[in-house]
């Protein structure tokens, strides 16, 4: 009898593949790529670390993470007449629309997405300089953030990992 055809999930291969994602943006639309890719990597058994720095710090700051915004200003990919984009209320409108579209696709909000990434085994790290610049401490950050660390710490910790800068 021939060997049955069974998918190779490569459990035993212990490939040791690791992914480091640097999240440096605090716009709603720029928060998602890192979260989606982290979630996908974790689902493939890839050890994943996220480092939140500069504007990306908003993604893990408790009083900001649920209120990230999307603006069409200066974003030609929205294909709106650029002169209209700075009109009052435009950012709020665009943000509302994007949130609705994401919710319709059952994409979690940023705080929920962080929960999911952590539940899937992801590691969250906060940038020391960003914490100092914003005068924020661990108590101001999402409770699953494992530490406030320096850029060197993160680089050292993710030695050999593939890296994404967003």
């Amino acid at each position, binding site marked *: 009898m021939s060997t049955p055809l069974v998918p190779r*999930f490569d459990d035993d291969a212990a490939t040791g593949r690791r992914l480091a994602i640097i999240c440096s943006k605090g716009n709603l639309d720029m928060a998602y790529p890192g979260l989606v890719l982290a979630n996908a990597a974790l689902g493939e058994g890839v050890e994943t670390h996220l480092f939140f720095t500069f504007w990306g710090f908003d993604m893990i700051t408790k009083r900001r993470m649920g209120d990230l915004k999307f603006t069409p200003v200066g974003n030609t990919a929205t294909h709106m007449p650029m002169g209209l984009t700075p009109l009052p209320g435009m950012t709020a409108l665009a943000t509302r629309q994007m949130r609705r579209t994401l919710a319709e696709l059952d994409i979690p909000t940023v705080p929920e997405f962080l929960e999911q990434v952590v539940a899937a085994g992801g590691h969250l790290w906060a940038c020391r300089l960003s914490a100092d610049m914003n005068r924020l401490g661990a108590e101001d950050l999402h409770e699953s953030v494992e530490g406030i660390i320096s850029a060197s710490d993160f680089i050292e910790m993710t030695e050999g990992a593939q890296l994404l800068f967003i």
Partner: protein
Amino acid sequence: MPVTTIGGREVHVDAEGFLTDPAEWDEDLATALASAIGLELTERHREVLRFLRADFATQGETATTRRVQAVGGFPTRLQFELFPTKPAKKMAYVAGLPKPRGCV
């Protein structure tokens, strides 16, 4: 479409080995599919599989880990415990369904 023998039964599969005809699946086959990838099914595993089957029947596509959590009520951590390392694909495989195509 290749045919392979799992648990003494012939089933239709794709090039990777995922079942292509959900109707060929039953709970006994699930036991054999699980064992083929090194898993032993508990009642908890079976509850997840039943959700996946029922959801596929109404939605026409395989639930992602997010959906298994949000709609099925099985926490992400539990999914990783029951179907280690690659829960989405392993759940789909044992449930006799295609790999989920959703990103989240």
